[in-house]
């Protein structure tokens, strides 16, 4: 596929995604995904911090900033996964377009990437929202001096880390697409389970050092662990990690995830074609 055709496809997918999403018949669903979820995440962070401070007797604003940034950037993981998990069934059974997208030469995976970019945009909106709200509630409301220098953010590092991270989460999303194409019902809970595991082991709120030895190994194998370290570093600078080493690890784990994700998707598409699932609408 020529690069211009790829770009056209991605552009259309982003546009369609935006149209479909801003048209949700159920405002409740909309509210859950865009507002309640990020805010709930924020409150959990506040809660964990308060308990931690209470138990240890020390109020450490540095720890708060650590949790706060980690939690906020985790939104990208959830949003991209949810977006990519929903789209196959919707496009196959509801809009009946999946098979036709599949038949336009070479565009399905780029279409999926475009739709995932919608997840990225949603996540960015949520991110700004929760950053703002967090500062409002915790810094101004509760008086926690969050040690964040808003003007000193390492934007270059942030951009690079974010870009690699997004590629990585999309690769995980392709695995979800593959699973959904082979199943007859939307796997609603799947992104939640995977998200939960990544949340626990990726060092979002629990430091990997607090995990049992196997948990630490697992955590070290996850790209999300390095992603969050880089996000934190770009905001907080001194986090006790070597940023270059973490960048290399992020890149390496991302390459592996992309290879696995795309291979899985390919195999899933082959199976779907073999079993006649690409346009499956009803049960046989």
């Amino acid at each position, binding site marked *: 596929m020529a690069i211009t055709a790829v770009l056209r496809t991605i552009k259309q997918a982003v546009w369609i995604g935006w149209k479909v999403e801003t048209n949700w018949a159920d405002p409740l669903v909309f509210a859950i995904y865009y507002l309640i979820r990020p805010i709930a995440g924020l409150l959990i962070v506040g809660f964990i911090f308060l308990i931690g401070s209470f138990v240890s007797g020390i109020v450490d604003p540095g720890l708060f900033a650590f949790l706060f940034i980690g939690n906020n950037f985790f939104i990208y993981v959830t949003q991209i996964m949810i977006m990519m998990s929903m789209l196959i069934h919707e496009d196959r059974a509801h809009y009946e*377009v999946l*098979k036709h997208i599949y038949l336009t030469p070479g565009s399905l995976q780029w279409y999926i990437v475009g739709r995932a970019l919608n997840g990225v945009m949603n996540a960015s909106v949520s991110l700004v929202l929760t950053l703002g709200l967090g500062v409002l509630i915790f810094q101004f409301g509760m008086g926690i001096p969050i040690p964040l220098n808003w003007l000193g953010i390492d934007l270059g590092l942030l951009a690079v880390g974010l870009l690699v991270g997004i590629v990585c989460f999309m690769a995980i999303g392709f695995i979800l697409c593959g699973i959904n194409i082979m199943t007859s019902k939307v796997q609603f809970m799947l992104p939640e389970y995977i998200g939960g595991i990544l949340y626990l082991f990726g060092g979002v709120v629990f430091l990997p050092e607090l995990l049992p030895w196997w948990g630490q190994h697992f955590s070290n194998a996850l790209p999300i662990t390095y992603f969050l370290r880089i996000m934190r570093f770009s905001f907080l600078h001194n986090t006790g990690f070597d940023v270059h080493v973490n960048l290399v690890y992020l890149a390496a784990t991302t390459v592996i995830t992309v290879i696995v994700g795309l291979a899985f998707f390919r195999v899933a598409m082959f199976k779907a074609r073999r079993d006649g699932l690409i346009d499956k609408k009803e049960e046989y």
Partner: protein
Amino acid sequence: MSHIVETCDIVRVFKGHDKPVKALDKVSIYIDEGEIFGLLGPNGAGKTTLIKILTTLLLPTKGEAYVGGFSVSKEAHKVRQMISLVSGGETPGYGILSASENLWFFSQLYGLSSSSAKARIKQLMTDLEFDEYAKTRMSKLSTGYKQRLNLARGLLNNPKVLFLDEPTLGLDVLTSKKLRAYIVDWAKREKEGTVLLTTHYMAEADEMCDRVAIIDRGRILACDSPLRLKQKLEDNFIMKVEVSSVQADFSFVDDMKGVIGYSQTRSIQTDTTSFKVMLTEEKIFSKIMLKLKEQNLKILSANEVEPTLEDVYISLVGRGFEEGEKTTHET
């Protein structure tokens, strides 16, 4: 490359609920460039399955098929560049977008440049007579206009082979007529435009197709031009009888010698049954009439009729298309 489409002993088995279902059983057909080829068969015959294999949506269990000389299983990406698929009774697209926005979406996925996409969409909307609905949300379009939109989408990429799966399913007579005429016209205009169309409407196959394959339970029973298929029945007698009562029972002909096959169409509204029977000799018909009189049925009409493609099917299978259904309508 001799034929634009060719299938070699295609077999397709589905898992099914309790036992495997053989949807296609050694199907071998070919289609030449520029032909309108019909696949005619009753429900469950395997028409959609064959179209899905040829359009690279499904893999054959055994056998191989070629479109434009490319293997559908091994060179699917090459096949996809020259085909498109339109399925009747479906409205692929986003209900919240307008008709033209939906076409635009697909034109971009095909990689058309903005200017040629715009021109093409405009042309198709004019040709298929729905430019007044260009800005209408797809979900608000009537079934007929949705199908026009569906067909327009299928023509966006100027396919070499257009696959149509029951393109007039559920459409009113007028729209069906228009779409059929347009498709025939398209194939002619594009010179080398080839169409494979599946249908269970006899008239559609007869009217549109250069050649027709009759398919039943996954097997191709006959394949020729509609005219030649019908000519093969010239030595037979086809009689049509209409009797009062929707409950008339014609099953007695099952045991009669010289009966090649029959079909019956019941109409609850008029409380009548129409019965078509194919005989080797005309004189057998009088025996049938006698039996009917014994049943005290009022005979409304009885006459010899010209063979149709349905009769070709009856001669091959011994029953009509819609057999086993309680009520049917003439198609």
